[in-house]
């Protein structure tokens, strides 16, 4: 059995977001790039499954759609423990493009379990996993918080309103994963870091796919206004503020 983990390359969560080109483009100056947190947890779970020899996992591969600048992030995934990696050499312009490129990579390959993070922490599109499954005509399960393997099938726990749902799905399957799939992301050990440079990172040229979205512009959230304190002796002022300033009553 083989596992594929799809990873995005996203700005570190402490990044101060700035836009350039008339608010049409993210300013990437000085940004530290990391593996999308959901993808990193997926990778951790994939490696846990591989560690359990009874699952008989042959390999864990990571796949990424992006330019060469993303390779440190891919090598980090190799250092954490992925066996090999694929990079489709294309700007990840939107979910459709990314899903199409990934689908092209997967055609003719025999991955049984495909992990996608439920969203990426940069643009939070939440679309790639579902699109990928449809393009491949694979089943997909979303909001996944646990994956086990039993008798060659995936036993998947998904979070639903007020509880959990456990489903059994034949492989191949796309698991669209949310936090909870692994406790903490696995830390790259020294041995893994040393081995990462010798592992295969295959670069594939993209197929022609139209990007379906165009960014009109970005907006920054309005800065939070200062807190106003109302004297408890003066409830009238509170009502007045809620009615005329906050306009919520």
């Amino acid at each position: 059995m083989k596992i594929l983990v799809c990873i995005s390359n996203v700005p570190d969560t402490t990044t101060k977001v700035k836009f350039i080109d008339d608010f049409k483009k993210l300013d990437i100056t000085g940004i530290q790039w990391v593996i999308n947190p959901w993808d990193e947890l997926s990778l951790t779970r994939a490696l846990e499954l591989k560690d359990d020899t009874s699952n008989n996992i042959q390999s864990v591969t990571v796949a990424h759609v992006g330019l060469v600048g993303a390779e440190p992030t891919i090598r980090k995934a190799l250092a954490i423990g992925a066996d090999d990696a694929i990079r489709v050499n294309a700007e990840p312009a939107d979910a459709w493009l990314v899903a199409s490129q990934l689908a092209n990579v997967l055609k003719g390959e025999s991955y049984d379990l495909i992990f996608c993070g439920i969203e990426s922490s940069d643009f939070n599109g939440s679309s790639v996993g579902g699109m990928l499954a449809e393009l491949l005509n694979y089943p997909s399960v979303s909001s996944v918080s646990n994956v086990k393997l039993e008798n060659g099938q995936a036993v998947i726990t998904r979070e639903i309103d007020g509880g959990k749902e456990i489903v059994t799905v034949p492989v191949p399957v796309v698991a669209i994963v949310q936090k909870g799939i692994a406790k903490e992301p696995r830390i790259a050990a020294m041995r893994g870091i040393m081995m990462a440079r010798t592992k295969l990172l295959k670069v594939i040229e993209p197929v022609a796919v139209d990007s379906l979205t165009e960014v009109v512009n970005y907006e920054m959230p309005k800065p939070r206004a200062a807190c106003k304190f109302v004297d408890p002796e003066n409830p009238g002022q509170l009502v007045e503020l809620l009615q005329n300033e906050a306009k919520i009553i």
Partner: protein
Amino acid sequence: MENRKVLKSGEFLVDEVQANDIFIPEQFDEEQKMISQTIQDFLDAELYPNLEQIDSPDINLMKSTLKKAGELGLMGISIPEEYGGFGQSFVTQMLAAEKIGAGHSFSVAFMAHTGIGTLPIMYYGNEDQRQQYVTRLASGDFIGAYCLTEPGAGSDANSGKTTAVLSEDGKYYILNGQKMWITNAGFADTQVVFAKIGGDRVLSALIVEKTFPGVVINPDEHKMGIKGSSTAQIFYNDVKVPVENLLGKRGEGFRIALNILHMGRIKLGANVLGAAKKSIVDSVKYANERKQFNTLISTFGSIKHKLAEQVIKTFALESAVYRLSKDIDNQIEVNKASGMDKGKASIEGISHYAVEAAILKVYGSEVLDYVVDEGVQIHGGMGYSAEMVIERAYRDSRINRIFEGTNEINRLLVVDTSMKRAMKGDFDLFGKANELAANLESVSDNKKQDESYFEEKLRAIKNFKNLILIVIQGVSKHFDKKLLLEQEIMNNLADMIIETYIAESIALRIQKMEMINGIDPSGLYRSMLDVFVYDAADNIRKPAADALNSFATSNVQSTYKKVVETLTNVTGINVKEARRKIADKLIEDNCYKF
């Protein structure tokens, strides 16, 4: 960089180093950054959530956290692959030490283990000793300690009273004595113990296992800071140490001890760098949250001044840390090429830079004390509360000026070693000093018209060096062999040398950054250099005058005064605006990103 010039220790005093000849942190490669991130992830996941408990103290938790670091391979970074390590360069070792340095008491336990606990055996052990001990220390199966200090032998390490006597059958040394302030004592499996064999006047080093009968470990000491690290006295009562556990040659202990301390000092310079960065982050985060007079305190000039100074000193320290680390790597390569084995090549490469090691130790520990002290001040009353991490950082910092050789001993070393190495012929210090002294009346600041930004800064630094040479010449001539007894003057000289080495390091780094990335349009880094050199001139002027006035007769005093003024004359800059620029970047990032 293959053809870069490798300088002797202290030679920077008489040489003009080029920006291309130094390594800067902006040159870290992908793998080094990954190792750095792994340590950060480890601290975030395994240490910070448990810091309170570790410092309670809980030595079992400390031990298990050390073991987890071992599982990640972090204890093998400095160890060659044939002994189970990862054979990393000295630069990478220092980067790892920097990251670990933000780990409070854990950092002390980790560094004692990987440094003074493990490396004496790696550097001086024979093949059997390395296979038996280093492999297990590198994996974390064993934890190591280093036992030099005794109740009556601190800075004067050679005066120890611990003895070892060869047994009648010649199979053992019978070890008796007492050691104190031993880091990791409570749980270390191996101890490198310094003792005098037979009636020797000099020390030897022995590898002692905790389980050897007669090893008695006292309960842990109660300390001001680094409370989670185990520190105790160890007693040796007729401990039978197999003769094969003699480390190096009989009588080689003092040399081992000193060389290992050089290594410890350099790594301490990296540790305090990591700790300083962390405290800066804690400081700015608080300043960006705390409001007084309805305004964030980070907008106040007084607070900006403190934040900027924290950054400038830390950035300068960082420049020197990695400049020296790469110099050491180069020297290690030279040593290997001459046929030395890896262990010997490493320790000889490190000891080669004894002057710079002492500089980093003194400057780094004092920068950290500055950073945590102002960190507490920025926190105001909350900084005095044990709830705040800055309070812990303040207490934990203080030991750095004491251990690995007090800063007083290290200041003496900076001067004494520079002069001894020059006398040995490593570089021409006295020739240049005499030449300058013979022409005191015509000393000039050598200002040229139309000099570039960096030419001007490097000229100022060269003037500082010339002033150091003039002071060395003056005090050497006057006090001759008794100079070493004039510790106040030695301290004056040490302060000048330290300030100059650091100033040169930050100047060359920023010059090299511009060579790689082009001129920074924000002027941020040039502002740092402006402030540093401007302040350095003042910091050098005073000790120079103090040293010269300690012997100068009235007829030369005015000449010296003019010389000091000329050679510390730097361009005036608007330090207030320069500091605000640096502080504003820190405040905006809410994080140390320089």
